C-alpha cells in the first residue's frame, strides 16, 4: 500500500467545467488540480476527454463527495470499484473524501452529514477506512467537514476524533481551513485548539474556501471569496503544518478563472511570508 507521504504539490484549484478551455488554452499559474471523483464516473464524452488532457499537463488529486465513510449502511463496493477504475486513469497523488456520512438505507442526501464523536463511531469509521484502504490499495485522505449541529452523546472533541481516526486507521488528512473556521464559530470552540490538536505529519492538503454568514451560524457554501478570518487561520495553519498542498475550493457562483488564480496567489503570498521563499521552493 502507498504509505509514503504524498509530495507537496504547491498551489492548486478545484477543476470546474467552466474553466476547461481557459486552462487548456492558457497557462494559468496553477500547480495542480483537484477533480471531483463522481463527476468523472461517466462512460465517455467531453468530461473524460478534458480530464485526460488536464491529467497530461498537471498533477491531479481526486476528491470524492459520496464515499459516506461514517455511514452505518454497508460500503458501496460498486462505487469503490468505479473509484478504483478512475484512479487508474487519473493516477492521482492522493484520493480524498470527507469524514462524514451521506445517507443510510440506500438514500443519498448529497450532504456531508456530521458524526457524533463517540467511541462507537470512532471504531466504526476506523474499521471502514481500513476496509476502503484495502480495497483501493492505498491510503485514503479524509477531510474535516463543516457542521451545524453537535450531538449530546459526543464523548470527545472533533479534533480528538479526527486525530484518532487518522492515527488508528493510518490515513492522511485534508485540513479544510474554512471548515475548521465554520465549525469553530458554530460550536464555539477555538480554531487554534483544532489546529494544534491534529497530528501534523498526517496533513497532506489544505482547502481554503468562502462561506455564508447567517449571524448566529455560518453555512459552508463555497460560493464566496475567502474571507479575512479564514486567511488568518490559513496563515496559522501554514506556520503550524509547514508547506502543505493548498487549494482554493469554489463550488458555486463560480467566477472567471483569473479571479481564483488571484486568490491562489494570495495563498502563495501568505505561505511565502510565513515559511520564507527558500523553504517553500525547497518543498516544491
Amino acid at each position, binding site marked *: 500500500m502507498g504509505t509514503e507521504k504524498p509530495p507537496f504539490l504547491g498551489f492548486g484549484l478545484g477543476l470546474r467545467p467552466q474553466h476547461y478551455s481557459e486552462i487548456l488554452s492558457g497557462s494559468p499559474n496553477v500547480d495542480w488540480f483537484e477533480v471531483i471523483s463522481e463527476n468523472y464516473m461517466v462512460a465517455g464524452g467531453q468530461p473524460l476527454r478534458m480530464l485526460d488532457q488536464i491529467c497530461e499537463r498537471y498533477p491531479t488529486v481526486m476528491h470524492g463527495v459520496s464515499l459516506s465513510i461514517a455511514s452505518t449502511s454497508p460500503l458501496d463496493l460498486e462505487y469503490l470499484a468505479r473509484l478504483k477504475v478512475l484512479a487508474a486513469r487519473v493516477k492521482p497523488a492522493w484520493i480524498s473524501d470527507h469524514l462524514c456520512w451521506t*445517507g443510510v438505507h440506500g438514500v443519498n442526501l448529497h450532504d456531508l452529514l456530521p458524526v457524533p464523536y463517540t467511541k462507537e463511531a470512532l471504531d466504526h469509521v476506523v474499521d471502514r477506512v481500513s476496509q476502503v484502504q484495502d480495497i483501493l490499495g492505498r491510503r485514503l485522505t479524509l477531510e474535516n467537514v463543516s457542521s451545524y*449541529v453537535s450531538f449530546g452523546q459526543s464523548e470527545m472533541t472533533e479534533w480528538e476524533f479526527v486525530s484518532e481516526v487518522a492515527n488508528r486507521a493510518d490515513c492522511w488528512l485534508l485540513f479544510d481551513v474554512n471548515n475548521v473556521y465554520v465549525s469553530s464559530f458554530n460550536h*464555539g470552540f477555538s480554531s487554534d485548539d483544532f489546529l494544534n490538536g491534529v497530528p501534523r505529519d498526517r496533513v497532506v492538503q489544505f482547502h481554503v474556501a468562502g462561506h455564508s454568514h447567517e449571524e448566529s451560524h455560518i453555512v459552508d457554501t463555497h460560493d464566496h471569496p475567502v474571507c479575512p478570518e479564514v486567511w488568518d487561520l490559513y496563515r496559522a495553519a501554514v506556520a503550524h503544518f509547514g508547506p502543505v498542498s493548498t487549494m482554493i475550493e469554489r463550488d458555486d457562483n463560480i467566477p472567471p478563472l483569473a479571479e481564483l488564480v488571484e486568490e491562489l496567489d494570495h495563498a502563495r503570498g501568505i505561505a511565502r511570508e510565513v515559511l520564507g521563499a527558500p523553504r517553500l521552493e525547497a518543498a516544491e
Partner: protein
Amino acid sequence: MTGLKQLQEKFQRGILAGDDKILSEIKDSAKEERKTLFGVYRYAYVARLAEILADDYEGLHGYVGDARFAKLAKAYIAAYPSDRRSVRDFGRHVPKFLSESDLFPGHPELAEIASLEKALADAFDGPDAEPLGLTVLGEVPPEAWPRLVFTPHPTVLRLAFSTNADAIWSAVREEMAPPKATVLPERQIVLVWRQDVTARFRPLGPEEAMMWDEAVQGTRFGVLCEMVATFAGEDGAELRAASYLKNWIEMGMLAGYRVE
C-alpha cells in the same frame, strides 16, 4: 445512548420526513436553537436537489417558469429520494414522473421536453466510439453494398414524441417564444446522439425513421433500399436511402459496419 445506526436513521428521517425526534439528540449552540441549526440540513437538502433539477432540465424550467418548476421540483424530490452516488443521476426519473403524475394535467409536452433533455445529457457523457467515416465506407466494393449492416453510435437514443416537444425545447433554448404545444397526428421520431463532444438531436421524417429503425436492427442495406422503395415509391428509392445513410455518417450517428 442512541446507537450510531439509530442516530443516522433519525437524522435522515428528520431531513426527509420533517420528523423532529432527532432534535433530542442535538444541542442548542450558544447563539442558536437546535431546530434552526438542524434546519440548515433540511433546507440544504431541498435547495441542492432543486438546483440540480433546474440545471439538468434548464429548457423545461424556461418553458414552465419558476413557480411551476418549483412545484415540480418539490413533488419530485418528495417522490424520488436520491439513491445514487452522483447527483448527475438524481433527476433521471423526471420524464417518467411527469408522464405519470397529475401535476400538470393536459400538458403531455412536459414529459417529452424532459425526456429530450435527459437524452441529451445521457448522450453528452455516454460511451465513446470512433464514428464511421465516409472514406472507410468508400473502400467497400460496390458488389458488397447490399450486404452492408450498420452499427449505431453507442450514444444514439430514439424518442417517439406525441407532441411538438422538440420544437418547443429548441425555441426556449434560443430564447424565442415557443410554439403552442400541440398533439401531433402521428408520433414524431427524434434521434439524440453525441457528435464529437456535442450532444445533438434530430427529428426524422417517417421514411427515414423507418429506415433507421430497420438499420439498427441489423437489416442489410440492400433490403433497406427495397423497404424505402415500398415506403414511398420506387422512383429514386436507392438515392433516398443512400442520402439518409450519408447524413447519418456525416453527423456521426453510426459507429461501424460489417458485410454479411
